[in-house]
């Protein structure tokens, strides 16, 4: 790559260890139609990867493949050295809060307890004590222990997201996977959420997807872009080929100012017919390829 950008923070262990996710030439989609084409992706222990991409670009599809919820059409996917279906109970899945029914009558405690539910009926009664300790631990990790007796549908978006993170943590996962963690969450709670994730990342790998580059660019260690195809260099850069993928966020970056230097130098963009250094109001320019 001809990018001139800051390398990601040093991660001495990550390149030597076995990848936790290894995807080669993946095609996946629904009803025989591919949403993802020829995806290559590797993720290592300790990584904190943020995947961005437009809505409908296949971010959630990629997550579903990794979680073993959607079959692979073509290519190879290995999670923790296993097939996604065999490995999925070692992954901590945090879905979008909007996906969980707003009216469902359930307490916070019972939501988190789901993470302890074993796939068999008769053995579960023997470890009630550990269940209780584990649930308390997970609630404390996400800083929602005081909400344990509350009804899940009375909580704010940010609180719900934390409860769902606790539910994922209680499974003691090797990798936390979050789908749009800040959708339906106000900006203050979303900042707190990212603080929590940074803290968790000290002991656990994190993969999160979002359509909001601004929100994740300051927090993750590496960025990838998904829009049918995927660009990922294991770096914290927003590179030219990500732009080529047809994503409009570089324009947004220019418009809002950069928290980090994530866009490469201006002269690399000569190939584009449209000038990319747009004014804050001119958001259309980036959409043109």
């Amino acid at each position: 790559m001809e990018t001139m950008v800051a390398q990601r923070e040093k991660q001495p262990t990550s390149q030597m260890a076995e990848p936790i996710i290894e995807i080669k030439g993946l095609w996946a989609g629904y009803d025989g139609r591919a949403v993802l084409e020829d995806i290559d992706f590797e993720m290592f222990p300790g990584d904190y990867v943020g995947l961005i991409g437009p809505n409908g670009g296949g971010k959630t599809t990629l997550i579903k493949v990794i979680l073993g919820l959607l079959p692979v059409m073509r290519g190879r996917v290995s999670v923790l050295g296993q097939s996604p279906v065999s490995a999925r109970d070692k992954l901590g899945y945090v879905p979008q809060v909007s996906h969980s029914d707003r009216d469902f009558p359930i307490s916070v405690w019972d939501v988190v307890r789901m993470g302890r539910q074993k796939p068999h009926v008769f053995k579960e009664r023997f470890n009630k004590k550990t269940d209780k300790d584990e649930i308390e631990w997970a609630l404390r990790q996400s800083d929602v222990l005081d909400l344990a007796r509350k009804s899940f549908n009375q909580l704010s978006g940010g609180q719900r997201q934390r409860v769902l993170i606790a539910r994922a943590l209680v499974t003691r996962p090797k990798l936390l996977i979050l789908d749009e963690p800040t959708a339906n969450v106000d900006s203050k709670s979303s900042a707190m959420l990212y603080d929590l994730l940074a803290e968790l990342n000290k002991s656990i790998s994190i993969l999160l997807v979002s359509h909001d580059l601004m929100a994740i660019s300051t927090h993750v260690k590496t960025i990838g872009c998904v829009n049918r195809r995927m660009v990922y260099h294991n770096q914290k850069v927003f590179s030219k080929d990500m732009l080529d993928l047809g994503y409009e966020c570089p324009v947004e970056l220019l418009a809002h100012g950069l928290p980090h230097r994530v866009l490469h130098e201006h002269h690399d963009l000569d190939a584009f017919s449209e000038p990319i250094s747009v004014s804050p109001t001119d958001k259309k320019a980036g959409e043109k390829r």
Partner: protein
Amino acid sequence: MIENLIEMFSFEFMQNALLAGVLVSVACGIIGTLVVVNKNVGISGGIAHAAYGGVGIASYFGLDPVLGAVVFSLFSSLAMGLAQRKLRERSDTMIGVMWAVGMAIGIIFISLTPGYRANMMSYLFGSILAVSSSDIWWMIGTAIGVIVFVALFYRMLLAISFDEEFATVRNLPVDLLSILLLMVTGLTIVVAMRVVGLIMVIALLTIPAAIGSMFFKDLRVIMLSAIVLGILINGIGLILSFKLNLQAGAVIILLAAGFYFLSFLIKRSILFKR
């Protein structure tokens, strides 16, 4: 008043009716709660109507129509459940087709059955005053089956109802339990059909649970409250229909709807006071 009631329930058919009301309320309270939170109301309507095919075939061959309804409801809930699991959004039409096919089979076989057919109306509109002892046994079996099924799988059913994808990632038997739940729902529908008929059965299944979920936030408490409400509605409906000499199933349903509306108003006034 009290003497009046004692006299009323000295009749064996009234005792049977009351017992039927209690048993059906237990099954409906528990399963209805799960139907409501899983948004399975539509598919339950399909199962109820498809079961009529079993009623028709069984009466044509001179068998117990309830047995026919049970067999049909189990098969149709299995088929509709598979369609729902595999086809997702597109299953809607298919469920609608099975709904109608079951009804059509029932109508044809009943018209082929020689003899007195008015009895068949009781499967459409219910006849709590005419429940037989074999009906009571079906109800006892169903109530026990429902209690055992939900007690065993409560945690898993809760997890699956709340968030199917997470449950799948945790390797819970999502497909199996969802379909089993539909089959148990099918059984419940058949016995509840004896009380209010297949056309109104969905109301008996869902209204007590819907009222419970207005006031309580724990699935088990909602189930309990739905059982109590169901018994009240059935009991009062039975007495009223006896007094006023009206069709019991319809009185019970109107009463349930009245309770629902009243609860709605109470709930609103509580919200406004806050």
